[in-house]
């Protein structure tokens, strides 16, 4: 019981936890076998079909990328004119989902990359459609990603249309997020795209997180009841992208702190052998 308290309140057990995670990682390799097998046994015909589709997609995306490059250069020039600092672009790394945590109340995934491949705690995780979540537990060769739909996860977002800031809460339901504490006067509409605000100093700004699916006024309640659908394919994506921010994340103090939200305190880490990292 004391152990639970220590694990919840402090980071002293971090090394032990990461050792246990490393020890249990092979279990997920085994449970992933059927899925990896079906993928590799996919028929020849389907592979060809896939290949064709991917080529088309690649062409389309590279055309869009050309335009994006021009736009981002223009953006950098304009920002330089305005005297504001350029946006930090993250480096991308790829990882595969090897497991899904067997917990109907929470939402997390196991990735097949860990400490050894440079994954760190708090690292943002994306798929091709949007934000998935963040790394909360790192073992040597695997790590755990807390999805944005987990009830412990809160994502600071902007309404893309008008830059209205709000907090997006996970509910534990795979397809449901809630925008809480939004007053009745706020301009949020059904169909609005919510993107990461980057104000947390953790998620890179501007990535799609969710689409508002319903906005309801509850009589007698001070706030709107706003529901949203995650943009990322949280339950289906197998290949994910890890974003490494170029600036060391330890330098920035965690900007948002919510009750029970999973946030490490970077300055309070002491390794078990007594040395500071």
């Amino acid at each position, binding site marked *: *019981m004391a*152990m*639970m308290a220590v*694990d*919840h309140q402090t980071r002293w*057990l971090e090394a*032990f*936890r990461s050792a*246990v*995670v490393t*020890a*249990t990682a092979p*279990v*997920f390799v*085994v*449970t*992933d076998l059927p*899925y990896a097998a079906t993928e590799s046994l996919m028929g020849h015909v389907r592979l060809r079909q896939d290949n064709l589709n991917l080529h088309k997609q690649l062409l389309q995306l590279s055309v869009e990328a050309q335009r994006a490059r021009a736009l981002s250069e223009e953006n950098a020039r304009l920002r330089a004119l305005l005297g504001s600092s350029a946006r930090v672009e993250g480096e991308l790394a790829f990882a595969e989902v090897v*497991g*899904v*945590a*067997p*917990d*109907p*109340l*929470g939402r*997390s995934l196991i990735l097949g990359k860990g400490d050894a491949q440079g994954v760190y705690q708090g690292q943002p995780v994306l798929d091709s459609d949007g934000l998935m979540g963040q790394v909360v*537990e790192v073992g040597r060769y695997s790590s*755990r990603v807390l999805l944005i739909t987990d*009830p*412990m996860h809160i994502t600071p977002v902007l309404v893309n249309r008008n830059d209205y800031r709000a907090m997006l809460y996970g509910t*534990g339901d*795979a397809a449901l997020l809630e925008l809480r504490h939004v007053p009745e006067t706020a301009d949020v509409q059904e169909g609005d795209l919510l993107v990461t605000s980057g104000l947390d100093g953790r998620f890179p700004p501007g990535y799609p997180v969710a689409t508002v699916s319903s906005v309801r006024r509850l009589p007698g309640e001070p706030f709107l009841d706003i529901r949203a659908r995650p943009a990322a394919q949280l*339950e*289906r994506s197998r290949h994910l992208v890890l974003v490494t921010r170029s600036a060391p994340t330890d330098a920035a103090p965690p900007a948002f702190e919510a009750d*029970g939200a999973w946030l490490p305190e970077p300055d309070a880490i002491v390794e078990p052998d007594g040395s500071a990292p």
Partner: protein
Amino acid sequence: MKFPDTLVIWATLLLALLLTAARLPADVPELFSWLRPEWAAIVLLYWVMAVPQRVGMVTAWCVGILVDSLTGSLLGQHALGFVLIAFVGLSMYERLRMYSLLQQAFIVFVTIALARLIGFWVEALVRGVGWTPMILLPAVTSALLWPLAFTALRALRRKFRIA
């Protein structure tokens, strides 16, 4: 001949851990993830009952920590529940052996339900999850699975002459 016994016991526990972590396809309904039995608790309870001098609360705690790691719960949450299950098993293993499969299944239900409730209590404190009677579903499926698990594990125990 002590070493192989321990090996067999841990092999069954490992199998239980694999089943605990087993991944369901993305398109099965939510309900199925509630129906998953507490594999590790079942296997643990069997060994505590059959060879209480070998498998006790320390083993239970270790298995609990491993399950915590697999499910991503707070370290010690399952460990606490499993230690409780082992305690119940240790304190009444002589009676348990005399019971019919049906009576044993009932005890399985009660102990696992108790462990689940403690787990829920911890989660409610830490993560603020709301109460749902679904919490107890794994205890029901575990109890239903018990006769099968018991028969299989007993056959294994006799084959390897673990005592």
